């Protein structure tokens, strides 16, 4: 790697050391979207995608976000990446509020947080060569010449298990797994402190998915990157993350170290989610089955968001919203009757 490359890396490192804060901190994040108006005489509706989310993620940590479609996990990813502006609340990366930054300042700060997307076929521009795709974040940063970039691209391609010569090929010449490696290489090239991965392996075949998962784990160990890993697949999250947050209707209903969460969930939704996962063992198991489906995010009622589907729901659940409270050892749950699944 060139001298300047090292210099930049050092700047990044000292940046990180100086702030000495969480890589990612999310404070009371809300995001509402207006719905298109249907009638002249009625108010336009709203989608309540996020309703007060708090998160912290330390350096080299890994936080998994799980939940079903419509729980707000992808909205969270977009807000963390500064692709959208929160309705309320704040996203801080390395101690700096990203909504407060603009133009060159934000563009420069972006090298500390990168993203890996779900669709290995859609996330790479089909008309650009791999070398150009991977170097994209560098292009935006500026301050490097073509030779330096080529060197860094070669290095990072090899890190993700591709060949340096692959930079002259087009995305369609690669398989799904290889494309996802290219996407990881692009995220990696600025040596970020945080990588946000939104369903990064869910489009891959199982045999290929395992390769990418192992790659992500190795990269974290080598470079001390923090992951915000969003997935609907609990097994994948369990494999990759130290801590897991479960989301339902735009809120975090439970958060805990992965081991604790999967061994002894406190929220009935987490329990139902865990038990619903089919396991590759012969025979059927007894399980808690939820009725109904996730309700629309267009209304906001009182009480617990999960009350409508919860087998344990009592009158209190419908009237009073349970806060996310700690139950020791970093285990938080938003439930009036944590750990009580009789019902």
């Amino acid at each position: 790697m060139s001298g300047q490359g090292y210099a930049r890396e050092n700047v990044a490192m000292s940046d990180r050391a100086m702030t000495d804060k969480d890589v990612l901190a999310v404070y009371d994040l809300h995001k509402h979207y207006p719905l298109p108006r249907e009638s002249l005489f009625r108010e336009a509706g709203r989608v309540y995608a996020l309703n007060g989310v708090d998160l912290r993620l330390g350096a080299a940590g890994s936080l998994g976000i799980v939940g079903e479609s419509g729980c707000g996990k992808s909205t969270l990813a977009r807000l963390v990446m500064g692709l959208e502006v929160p309705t309320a609340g704040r996203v801080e990366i390395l101690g700096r509020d990203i909504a407060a930054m603009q133009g060159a300042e934000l563009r420069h700060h972006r090298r500390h947080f990168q993203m890996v997307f779900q669709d290995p076929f859609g996330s790479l521009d089909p008309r650009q060569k791999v070398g150009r795709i991977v170097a994209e974040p560098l292009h935006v940063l500026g301050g490097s010449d073509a030779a330096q970039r080529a060197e860094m691209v070669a290095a990072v391609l090899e890190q993700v298990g591709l060949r340096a010569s692959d930079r002259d090929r087009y995305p369609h010449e690669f398989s799904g797994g290889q494309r996802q490696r290219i996407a990881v290489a692009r995220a990696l090239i600025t040596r970020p402190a945080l990588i946000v991965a939104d369903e990064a392996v869910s489009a891959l075949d199982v045999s290929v998915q395992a390769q990418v998962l192992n790659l992500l784990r190795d990269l974290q160990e080598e470079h001390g990157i923090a992951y915000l890993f969003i997935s609907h697949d609990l097994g994948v999250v369990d494999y990759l993350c130290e801590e897991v947050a479960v989301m339902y209707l735009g809120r975090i209903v439970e958060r805990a170290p992965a081991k604790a969460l999967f061994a002894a969930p406190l929220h009935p939704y987490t329990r139902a989610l865990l038990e619903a996962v089919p396991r590759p063992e012969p025979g059927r198991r007894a399980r808690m089955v939820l009725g109904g489906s996730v309700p629309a995010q267009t209304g906001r009622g009182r009480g617990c968001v999960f009350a409508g589907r919860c087998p344990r729901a009592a009158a209190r659940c419908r009237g009073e919203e349970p806060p996310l409270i700690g139950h020791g050892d970093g285990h938080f749950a938003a439930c009036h009757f944590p750990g009580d699944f009789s019902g």
Partner: protein
Amino acid sequence: MSMQQAQPASLLSRLTRGNGFWARALRHRSFLAGGFLSLLLVLMAVVSAFWTPYDPTKMNFRLRFAPPSAEHWLGTDHFGRDLFSIILTGAQNSILVGVVSVAIGLSFGVALGLLASARRGMTEELVMRFSDFAFAFPAILLAVMFVAALGPGSANAILAIGVYNIPVFARLSRGAANAVWTREYILAARTAGKGRLRITIEHVLPNILPVIIVQATIQFALAILAEAALSYLGLGAQPPAPSWGRMLSEAQTLIYKDPMLAVYPGLAIALSVLGLNLLGDGLRDIIDPRLSRRR
């Protein structure tokens, strides 16, 4: 692997194997036919710029309505002019019309479409309403109005057709660009910190280019048709400039005398338009990303 172990093959079969653009193009029969006809049109225009068998404007009253012969391949018209020479020269006019009017539509239309797609909201609404409005004037009506206002002539006809092309390309490129904007690689570019203008130039434009090229060939063909109609009405190319459309209006007055006069120019228009349409449709098939992408 199978490529290497193939037995020695002719150049053609080697060219047409595989999945590259040219290989697929050479296998596509209507694309080839379209390409041939379009090339012929260009060739006619180029050749006639330097050489024609006879001066296409030179009259010869002793040789009126001559039948096709070795000297005059298609015969002569009511002024004794060599038909073949006129038809040949008429290609220049058609090419000019197509190139200029498509260029006008392309440059303004694509810019508007990309702008609408990049800005969304009010800008998009405005551009779309503008093109809705422009669609209220079908090409010929718009051209008639233009020509009524500015006076008949080739330049005004071309301008009118060009203006008509603007909303066509605006609409098309906005639709295609909107589809591109939803792709994840755009999100990736945004997370890298690229602005809307930069994304439009570096990602959106290259990805909608195939669609635009295809439409450009189709609009080229439509421009030739529209100009021919205007010239037929006497609103386009003025005498003595050779124009296929005007030849037809002259021929119509003579259909009892020599119906063949009405055949050649019409055939020239139809074959040019056919060629361009086949070319455009073929391109669409060949460039189609669903075929070029192998999962």
